[in-house]
């Protein structure tokens, strides 16, 4: 297969495969994990390379496979300019972060886990930016939330890491729900979830009545992911992650996923007043709040976190302005922010690594300890501040320019450039603080470690990024221009506007604003001491995080209250609610139906025998309830009920059912008898009178409902599938017993599931009975010791004679099952009864010497035979469990139909025998639990 037709999904799936390999490889060598992670990333880049070339030549690649057409889900990938920009950022910065993390992680940290999470996250991000189908995009979107949760909580032993990760997951996950709703609406409007269709339907969507709710829902998804006000507070709390994670997630990837969606939907959703108001306003608030708060952070990473929030706000604001040039500026700033912020996070990590703290009140004067790192940090911070000749300056100029363009007549419009400049002031101030406080400002205060330069390979990623900052800042046309051009084209899905990447645009308003920002920033930083004091005393406590904590607390309290209101740890109460609700729903159903209660069907005549039998059933049922304290007697009565039920099956032309019911009845009663031995023989009177009345009334009403419902159905005529099965049974299934043919042929797959359930029940019981702490009572409830001569002689003798006869009956019933009442289920029960009878009459020990009671192999064999029958059909090119049949003449037995379904029935037989015998014999074995011991406490 030509790789170039599948390279997009390949690139996305590679990191996921790599994650598994890395996790496995780390068991052998920890550094191998890092190498493999790097190689995986390089491979993904390599796989993507030909596609990138095509995109730079102006193509849009789509690779799509039909997946679930009924819901509009395709397995579809798309690479255009926007996707290419993000994919490059994800992979290149990812590669640098992997190199950095290799030296950052200490010997105590598990490299395998880190890099496996990292690659999972990388794959999820690639999936988001390369998805053509929006539903598929949504899946990857959620995967980024989950994998970032793992990354943020990487140091699981730390409380703050767990809290931060949980907060990030709660907020981004909640936003994901909103986004999903938005995307579903979008898909409904367009009639397709594929981006190619959605991107062309911009006008239709903007004119649609559901435009506003869609916009709001998608915006919530974007705002939560990209840490926009008022959801921004998760980002600073996620700083408890290892610094490589912060460098990756909060510069180029996770938080940019929201921005990516803004860019992706820009041609579809932008251009309306609603868009500008919602996106623009939130972006502006975030820009200001982030820049302001960043200045007051004492934690290095805290400062960078708020600065990230502020820059994300800036990008959001630019998209919110809605013009094409603003979108160009936004894309440019995405690139620039990724480079300088990633390098700054890495510097913060280096400082943390080499000094042991991130508190800027203690880290001072590092210039002379780590001059190289200091120079890198200063350049990157200057880029963040928007100092000329660096990349941040260029995009900030574009931003100021767009702010001026956007300022219209209104007061709000006039305010945009003013607020933009104000944000610039704070941005310069906190950048200055990052430089001055850390690298100058006297001597370090009481550092845990003596600072020095980091290992060279830890610094190389920063070197690369800072060189990029300078290169883009000085020679934009020769560096970033082609990438920006395709990104703009991919975003706008049309002809890009004219824009200039020149460094010098002459003396104009943006330059003036830059100048004001620089001077103002320096001034603000100069008066920082009183500002800090004011902030500490007035603002600090008012964080949204506390509101969030309070809300979560309240939510948990309410949830706990509700849970406790319904679930008091009592099965009785829970059942009461469930049954009561069932009654309520049933009643509502009855009341809302206008149809007459009874139908027109001609009823069957009632004869005296039936009446007598029916009355027996009813009386026996009632008696089993009345006598339920006398457990043994109630059990006997219960057996009578079961027998009458099987009589009913005989009466109404269902011999198979009657046979099954009869044999199951015997097995059930034996089982309950065995169990009763370990339980109290009498039920104490504990229920209060009100409870009995309550339960009685509920039971009566439910019984009435069931009776009325049954009557309503039985008195109506209906079209059934019966004709099909009856006419097809002989020609299609080769059997005259339609019930059996349905079981082993028409609905063989159902039966397959049912015997699997039965086998599981048997195994589950076997597991439950291992090491059970039960002690057989030495005497019965009235104080008499149990009789020791367990096995009556006559029963012993007869049971031994009966054994081969019973097995023969089982074989007979099995063989005739396809054409006459019988079959695997019934034959299995009869054979099981034969074995159980031996155990009852002769004792477990005696029987175990003669019949192997280990039934696991029976269960396995039965399931294998049943599944194997189906497989054979598949091997012959038919669907699973297709049957074939032929005539066979067998002397004595006569002419009969041999169907492949018989092998399937054999599997059923084996499982039924295996499960039944396993259950009863395992339970019976408990009886042999050695010496009789005193009755347990709580015995009545």
């Amino acid at each position: 297969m030509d790789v170039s037709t599948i390279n997009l999904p390949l690139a996305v799936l590679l990191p996921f495969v790599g994650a598994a390999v890395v996790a496995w490889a780390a068991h052998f060598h920890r550094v191998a994990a890092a190498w493999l992670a790097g190689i995986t990333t390089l491979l993904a880049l390599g796989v993507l390379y030909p596609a990138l070339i095509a995109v730079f030549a102006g193509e849009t690649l789509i690779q799509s496979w039909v997946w679930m057409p009924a819901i509009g889900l395709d397995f579809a990938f798309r690479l255009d300019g926007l996707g290419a920009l993000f994919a490059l950022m994800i992979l290149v910065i990812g590669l640098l972060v992997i190199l950095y993390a290799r030296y950052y992680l200490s010997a105590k940290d598990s490299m395998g886990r880190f890099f496996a999470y990292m690659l999972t996250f990388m794959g999820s991000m690639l999936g988001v930016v390369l998805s053509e189908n929006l539903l598929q995009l949504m899946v990857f979107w959620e995967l980024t939330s989950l994998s970032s949760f793992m990354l943020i909580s990487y140091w699981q032993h730390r409380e703050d890491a767990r809290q931060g990760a949980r907060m990030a997951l709660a907020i981004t996950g909640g936003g994901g729900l909103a986004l999903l709703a938005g995307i579903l609406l979008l898909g409904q409007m367009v009639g397709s979830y594929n981006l190619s269709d959605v991107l062309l339907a911009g006008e239709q969507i903007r004119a649609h009545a559901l435009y506003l709710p869609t916009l709001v829902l998608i915006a919530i998804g974007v705002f939560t992911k990209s840490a926009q006000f008022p959801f921004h507070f998760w980002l600073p709390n996620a700083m408890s992650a290892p610094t490589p994670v912060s460098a990756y997630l909060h510069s180029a990837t996770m938080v940019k996923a929201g921005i990516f969606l803004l860019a992706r939907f820009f041609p579809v959703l932008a251009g309306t007043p609603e868009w500008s108001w919602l996106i623009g306003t939130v972006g502006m608030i975030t820009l200001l709040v982030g820049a302001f708060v960043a200045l007051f952070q004492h934690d290095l990473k805290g400062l960078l976190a708020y600065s990230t929030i502020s820059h994300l706000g800036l990008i959001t604001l630019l998209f919110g302005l809605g013009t094409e040039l603003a979108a160009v500026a936004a894309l440019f700033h995405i690139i620039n922010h990724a480079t300088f912020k990633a390098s700054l996070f890495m510097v913060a990590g280096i400082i943390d690594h080499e000094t042991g703290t991130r508190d800027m009140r203690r880290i001072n004067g590092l210039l002379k300890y780590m001059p190289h790192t200091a120079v890198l940090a200063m350049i990157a911070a200057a880029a963040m501040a928007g100092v000329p000749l660096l990349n941040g300056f260029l995009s900030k100029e574009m931003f100021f320019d767009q702010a001026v363009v956007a300022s219209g007549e209104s007061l709000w419009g006039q305010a945009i450039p003013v607020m933009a400049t104000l944000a610039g002031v704070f941005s310069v101030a906190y950048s200055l603080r990052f430089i001055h406080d850390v690298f100058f400002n006297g001597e370090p205060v009481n550092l845990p470690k003596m600072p020095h330069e980091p290992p060279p390979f830890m610094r190389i990623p920063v070197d690369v990024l800072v060189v990029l900052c300078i290169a883009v800042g000085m020679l934009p046309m020769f560096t970033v221009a082609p990438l920006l051009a395709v990104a703009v084209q991919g975003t706008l899905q049309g002809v890009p506007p004219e824009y200039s990447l020149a460094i010098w645009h002459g003396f104009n308003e943006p330059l003036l604003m830059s100048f004001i920002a620089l001077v103002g920033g320096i001034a603000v930083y100069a008066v920082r001491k009183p500002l800090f004091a004011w902030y500490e005393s007035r603002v600090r406590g008012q964080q949204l995080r506390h509101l969030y904590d309070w809300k979560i607390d309240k939510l948990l309290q309410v949830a706990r209250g509700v849970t406790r209101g319904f679930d008091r740890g009592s099965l009785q109460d829970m059942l009461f609610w469930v049954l009561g609700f069932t009654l309520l729903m049933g009643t509502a159903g009855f009341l809302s139906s206008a149809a007459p209660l009874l139908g027109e069907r001609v009823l069957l005549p009632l004869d005296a025998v039936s009446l007598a039998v029916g009355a027996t059933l009813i009386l026996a049922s009632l008696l089993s309830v009345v006598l339920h304290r006398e457990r043994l007697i109630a059990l006997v009565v219960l057996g009578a009920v079961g027998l009458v039920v099987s009589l009913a099956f005989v009466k109404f032309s269902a011999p198979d059912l009657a046979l099954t019911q009869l044999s199951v009845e015997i097995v059930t009663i034996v089982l309950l008898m065995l169990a009763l031995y370990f339980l109290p023989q009498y039920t104490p009177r504990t229920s209060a009178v009100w409870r009995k009345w309550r339960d009685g009334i509920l039971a009566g009403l439910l019984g009435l409902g069931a009776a009325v419902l049954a009557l309503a159905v039985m008195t109506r005529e209906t079209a059934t599938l019966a004709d099909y099965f009856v006419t097809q049974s002989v020609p299609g299934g080769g059997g005259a017993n339609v019930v059996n043919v349905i079981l082993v042929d028409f609905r063989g797959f159902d039966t397959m599931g049912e015997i699997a359930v039965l086998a599981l029940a048997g195994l589950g019981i076997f597991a439950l009975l291992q090491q059970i702490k039960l002690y057989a009572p030495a005497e019965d409830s009235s104080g008499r010791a149990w009789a020791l001569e367990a096995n009556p002689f006559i029963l012993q003798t007869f049971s031994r004679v009966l054994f081969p006869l019973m097995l023969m009956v089982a074989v007979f019933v099995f063989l005739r099952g396809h054409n006459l009442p019988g079959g695997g289920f019934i034959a299995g029960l009869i054979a099981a009864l034969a074995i159980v009878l031996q155990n009852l009459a002769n004792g477990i020990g005696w029987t175990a010497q003669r019949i192997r009671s280990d039934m696991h192999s029976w269960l396995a064999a039965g399931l294998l035979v049943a599944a194997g029958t189906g497989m054979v059909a598949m091997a012959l090119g038919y669907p699973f469990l297709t049957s074939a049949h032929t005539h066979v003449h067998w002397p004595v037995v006569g002419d009969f139909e041999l169907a492949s379904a018989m092998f399937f029935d054999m599997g059923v037989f084996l499982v039924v025998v295996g499960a039944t015998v396993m259950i009863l014999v395992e339970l019976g074995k408990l009886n042999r639990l050695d010496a009789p011991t005193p009755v347990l406490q709580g015995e009545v």
Partner: protein
Amino acid sequence: MELLIALSIGVLVACGVYLVLRASTFPVVMGLTLLSYATNLFLFAMGRLAIGVPAIVRPDAAGYADPLPQALVLTAIVIAFGMTAFAIVLALKARGETGSDHVDGRTPHPNPSPSRGEGLRGSLAPPRPLRERGLGGEGESP
């Protein structure tokens, strides 16, 4: 005849529900058994009742009973047995572990009111251990 069957189903359901709501495990299992009888009869009756019609395909037959509900009920009977068995063994295990045959593994507590506001953050209150109620303590096993 239909009325009689409907009545039987109703009585089986009522008796089953009442027993399922009891506090000890054994009546609950008995209730489940009754409920499964009721369910099987109900499912069976959905194919309408027919007396004296052949169950086997024959050339001379005038009509047949609906075989599909029968096939469903046949497996349902066997599965119900598996479920009853599992429930009763679970009851035995619970008795072994807690020393009580109460469905909640305890004798009824006089005051089961929940304690509120324990100030737990981010996690639900842990279930109260059985030991508090003085039952099934580890040192008490004979």
